[in-house]
């Protein structure tokens, strides 16, 4: 039984919970999240409606499951592509070097320096509410690949000098097989931590956008739930269940993601240390 | 001066006890350069830190006595025990670390790092006076005064080590402990550092203890030399005597390993490894590697006996004491 550290365990369990809520539960939902007035409005929590209902006539609990699903979906899609592109760019830049590396590094610096939200706001507003989750995801991918790229690049740079790479090279292995066999396993663990982190950033950015109404508001995401709550003065009317649910869900989800990613980073560092010893 | 009597300093961890220093008896006398030689891991650095009273848990002195005789400000001689020795750091006893690069704070100017060593106990408050004192001391040692205004990365490795020597001695301490002062420096610079140390000792007439695994270093400047093996002192005596007439088999092998110019002889390393410090064997520690080993060597630990005037050795090959008086190294 592999010994997992505390953070990883806590984060993992929470994440599992969210996956259950977001991936499995929606299949059982009796309501379609996009239809309004399916149930009586503004009800307090009861057995029939675990978290009450919204001012739009939706069951809060089942709405939440779809919101989690969509938010997770965005997060995973963006993280997957951003991490893949980032890792490739970092490996190529760090290992090949030269003008390619300089060009890639410049791109990385630029996209890290330019804040993503203004561009997203620009895109979303120009699409006049026809913004799709896909568009948002695309822009997020463009702005988030540099972070893993930078990290992987510095790993690749330091690996270049290391003994075991030179040994492989001198024994005649091709550059590609070196990359695959020696560097990749090491990079893989970092990529995983980066992946989880990017999920966090993607969901956070999309939710931020949604809260001010610039995401795809017909879709249910954690951010749009908050948006609709604000639109319908849930704060003023003290409808805490409606607005509190997505807020707490976001907090828990992000804590879970953070614990999982740092816990995993610690875990893999420890394993590497033990393997070497 | 310092007196150590059967000092034992152990690392105590839950898993094991590492007996780094296992019964060391020696004196650091006034106006001498004492060398402590031995291979890596023999415990000499720990011994030095025990002398300096800088052992931190889990490292502890578990047995034995350490006493320091200090001449205080009024000229009286006071005896200090561990715990009190550290109250007189830098003025009475100082420490020159190994590894010249990492011992200096990279973002602080050198002069500030001199000032750091001065505490309220030293009763020095006038900054200009202190600065003048440091500057003139540097001039004495033929170090450029501009060094004070520089940062560590602006100096070469050799210069940094010289700065560390100056830093360790500018308050004219009565005892100076130097831990591998020449390691990682090239041979020419090594010579310079050693000359500097010797010059400082000669002028201040204090006690200098040099720990080094490099026998050549000891040959060049020490007055007396102690050979340490696996936590114990196996031989101690005046340097020239020990080099001309090494009594302990380990000492003999160490000295044989020194290369001489024109010497074409095939050099051999000493086979085998030192025994574990957590679980040392009952007899002489060197028994497993000794070419002259006898049965008794494996059973009982030999003690240090004075075999020649002021030349002590712990070996069953030399069991005729000079005189029947209590021998102390």
């Amino acid at each position, binding site marked *: 039984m592999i010994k997992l550290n505390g953070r990883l365990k806590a984060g993992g369990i929470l994440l599992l919970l969210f996956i259950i809520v977001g991936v499995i539960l929606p299949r059982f939902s009796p309501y379609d999240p996009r239809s309004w007035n399916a149930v009586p409005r503004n009800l307090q929590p009861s057995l029939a409606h675990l978290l009450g209902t919204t001012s739009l006539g939706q069951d809060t609990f089942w709405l939440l499951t779809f919101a989690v699903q969509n938010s997770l979906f965005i997060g995973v899609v963006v993280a997957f592509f951003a991490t893949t592109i980032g890792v490739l760019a970092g490996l190529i830049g760090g290992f090949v070097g030269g003008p390619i590396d300089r060009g890639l590094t410049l791109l990385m610096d630029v996209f890290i320096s330019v804040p993503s939200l203004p561009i997203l706001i620009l895109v979303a507003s120009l699409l006049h509410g026809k913004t799709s989750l896909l568009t948002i995801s695309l822009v997020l991918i463009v702005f988030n690949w540099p972070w893993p790229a930078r990290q992987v690049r510095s790993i690749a740079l330091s690996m270049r000098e290391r003994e075991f790479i030179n040994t492989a090279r001198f024994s005649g292995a091709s550059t590609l097989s070196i990359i695959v066999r020696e560097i990749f396993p090491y990079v893989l663990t970092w990529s995983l931590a980066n992946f989880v982190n990017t999920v966090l950033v993607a969901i956070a950015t999309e*939710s931020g956008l949604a809260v001010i109404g610039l995401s795809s508001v017909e879709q249910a995401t954690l951010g749009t739930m908050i948006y609709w709550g604000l639109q319908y003065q849930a704060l003023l009317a003290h409808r805490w269940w409606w607005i509190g649910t997505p807020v707490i869900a976001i907090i828990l989800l992000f804590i879970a993601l953070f614990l999982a990613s740092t816990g995993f980073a610690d875990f893999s560092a420890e394993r590497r240390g033990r393997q070497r010893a | 001066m310092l007196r150590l009597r059967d000092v034992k300093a152990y690392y105590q961890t839950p898993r094991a006890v590492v007996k780094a220093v296992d019964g060391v008896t020696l004196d650091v006398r006034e106006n001498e350069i004492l060398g402590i030689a031995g291979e890596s891991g023999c415990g000499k650095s720990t011994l030095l830190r025990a002398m300096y009273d800088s052992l931190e848990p889990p490292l502890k002195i578990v047995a034995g006595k350490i006493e320091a005789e200090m001449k205080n400000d009024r000229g009286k001689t006071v005896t200090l025990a561990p715990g009190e020795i550290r109250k007189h750091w830098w003025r009475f006893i100082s420490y020159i670390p190994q590894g010249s690069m990492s011992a200096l704070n990279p973002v602080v100017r050198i002069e500030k790092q001199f000032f750091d*060593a001065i505490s309220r106990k030293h009763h020095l408050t006038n900054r200009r006076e202190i600065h003048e004192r440091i500057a003139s001391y540097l001039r004495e040692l033929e170090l450029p005064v501009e060094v004070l205004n520089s940062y560590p990365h602006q100096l070469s490795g050799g210069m940094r080590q010289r700065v560390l020597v100056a830093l360790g001695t500018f308050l004219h301490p009565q005892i100076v402990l130097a831990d591998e002062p020449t390691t990682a420096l090239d041979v020419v610079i090594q010579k310079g550092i050693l000359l500097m140390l010797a010059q400082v000792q000669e002028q201040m007439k204090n006690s200098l203890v040099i720990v080094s695994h490099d026998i050549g270093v000891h040959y060049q400047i020490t007055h007396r030399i102690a050979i340490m093996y696996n936590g114990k002192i196996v031989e101690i005596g005046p340097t020239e005597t020990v080099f001309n007439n090494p009594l302990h088999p380990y000492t003999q092998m160490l000295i044989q390993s020194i290369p001489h110019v024109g010497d074409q002889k095939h050099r051999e390393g000493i086979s085998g490894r030192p025994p574990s410090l957590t679980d040392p064997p009952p007899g002489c520690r060197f028994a497993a590697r000794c070419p002259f080993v006898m049965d008794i060597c494996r059973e009982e630990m030999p003690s240090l006996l004075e075999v020649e005037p002021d030349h002590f050795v712990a070996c069953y090959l030399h069991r005729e004491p000079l005189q029947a008086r209590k021998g102390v190294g």
Partner: protein
Amino acid sequence: MRFARYLFSRLVTYFLVIWIGMTVIFFVPRFLPSDPVTAALGRVMSSGSTMRPEEVQAMRSTLMQLYGLEGTLPEQYFNFMKRAVFGGSFGPSLAFYPTPVNALIGKSLPWTLFLLLTSTLIAWVIGNLIGLLAGYQSGKIYSKVLEGIAIFLYPIPYYILALILIILFVYINPIFPVSFNVQRASLSPEFIYSAIFNSVLPALSIIVGAFGWWVLSMKALSAGIAEEDYVSFARLKGVGEPTIMGRYIMRNAILPQITQLALNIGTIFNGALITEILFGYPGLGTLTYTAVVQSDYNLLMGTISIGIIAVATAALVVDLLYPLFDPRIEYR
């Protein structure tokens, strides 16, 4: 002299970032299916007025001129860059016609700078101090507690914190007003007090949201540096613990934190934008939101551009201050 080289390369990156950022801003609307002119015309016409074809044409060409959409693509690009970078003008605002966009930005930017700079600095300073203490005595209970708090707060986005603060202090326990409420007077004491009072909640959102990261990273850094040779040698010299914490550990640990600050300004700005909007804070964020809601194309381009330039400039300033703290930078 080496510093000149560092300065030069940093400036090159700075201008490149702004240039590429502006280029992206320029091209985004042109790659999207909707055309702002048609959209604007559509809005005008759907508001009930009917116009004759010539009037529509005239309006179209006026709009195109206003939006900078005349001429070929290279011409538009050149004019855009010229106007924005050199002329510094983004044209008139459409929602507040004929007030120029620059004037509007000029009124909002100071508020944003005030909020952002003070909150970020406070979070950075407090976070680093707490992190230093926590890392210095990493075994003690209070260090673990602080770390736990930081871990809990760090992943939470600023706008969520803003919402929580709003719920707590505007609705449940009404200390602060629902929306920003400041008399636009001159620099009188009442104005200053009112400004600060109304800024507390937005600032708190940013400070609480940001300081967690600094605590965690500083803790790790100072714990690492506490193991360094020069720290143990300092102790052997008899240097007192406060000096060790300050001159030895902090002075070295703070260096990567300065670099991190420059890197993080973009992220902090993102969060601050939304926070501003939630509080109705009269800064760049709310102005941008107004531009979006009112479909004010010029204003939108203006605020986004200034946002990017502001972030890049702030990062540049921090980066340039770095050599003041690290004497080794001359030899980078």
